[in-house]
């Protein structure tokens, strides 16, 4: 079963993302800050990380993405950035940080699943 980590500071958004992923069989983990997300990622070595860009704490989403991408234990880990529609620079910044894909907020339930299936198919 694919292991997915959601790193998102808004509890409601996080819950909706989790409920969306529950449409299928995934092992789902959650973190509410970049810092907590990084710690959990190291521990779990997830297959996919859904990563918000703007989060409180010392590490934002881009920092976490860069760390994941330079960690030898997480070479298999795909990162999908969650970017706000208004901040169009987020997308470029996300790819510069090594993100594999991105999703715009407000996120589309079907797009979340399609993006994850695409990551799986690329394996």
């Amino acid at each position, binding site marked *: 079963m694919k292991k997915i980590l959601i790193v998102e*500071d808004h509890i409601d958004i996080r819950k909706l993302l989790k409920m969306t992923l529950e*449409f299928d069989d995934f092992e789902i983990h959650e973190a509410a800050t970049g810092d907590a997300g990084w710690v959990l990622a190291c521990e779990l070595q997830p297959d996919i990380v859904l990563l918000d860009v703007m*989060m409180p704490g010392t590490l934002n989403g881009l920092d976490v993405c860069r760390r994941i991408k330079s960690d030898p234990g997480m070479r298999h880990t795909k990162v999908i950035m969650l970017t706000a529609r208004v901040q169009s620079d987020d997308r470029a910044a996300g790819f510069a940080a090594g993100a594999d894909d991105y999703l715009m907020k407000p996120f589309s*339930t079907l797009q979340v699943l399609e993006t994850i299936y695409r990551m799986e198919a690329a394996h």
Partner: protein
Amino acid sequence: MTSLPLLEPASQVPPDTRCFDEAAAAQMERFVRDFGRMYRERNEALREVTRAHHAALLHLSAAADLKDDDTGVHIVRIGYLAEALALALGQTVGYARMLRKAAPMHDIGKIGTPDSVLKKPGKLTPEERQTMNCHAAMGAEILGRSNIPVFRMAAEVALTHHERYDGQGYPAGLSGEAIPLSGRITAVVDFFDALTMDRVYRPAFAVPVALEMLAAERGRAFDPVIVDTFLAHAEAIDALRCKITQECPSFDALIDAP
């Protein structure tokens, strides 16, 4: 060193701040849950339809194959051998699996080929050859009516499995990489499997002879990379061929195997 939080007042904001009104959040969750149920039910229904459609088309392919003096296991072998060859070529597991399900239907169009042509002993006249060659396009038409990916691939295989790498094939005379990979792989597997089975007009060729005949078509009928890969994995592929012949997996197994 740990002075960062002072620079970033945002970090003082407690995580887990709500962004929705509680009642609105509850209602939204209700919607998502219902949507999830419909999503799963829809996928389940689609799977059922696909499976029934697939089984029917496999039976039709087997019927076409029976006209052509075979026991039906040939088309199952084509599926598994095409899957193995696709994997050996470095294709994804998903692609290889889809090819396993799609390739067995490549000759479904022979259902429309008159027996007088299909079963004619000896050489075909140019008109008969033309009638025979129609099976590729007919198969593509039977299979191509669906939007489901596995049938789209099956239609592609049916249409292109008689194209030749050197451009001398039919129906379109495509050459090289212009021939879809699925068709190029199936052509190789079909050639080898047909040679290594008994036909009414000749006994099976020995495996080493069949491999030599395959090598002779490298860059002519077949993609050189695919032929090289086949030859490099010939032992494993032939072992799989024997295993399938012995176990004779059902169509259900062909559809459902992971």
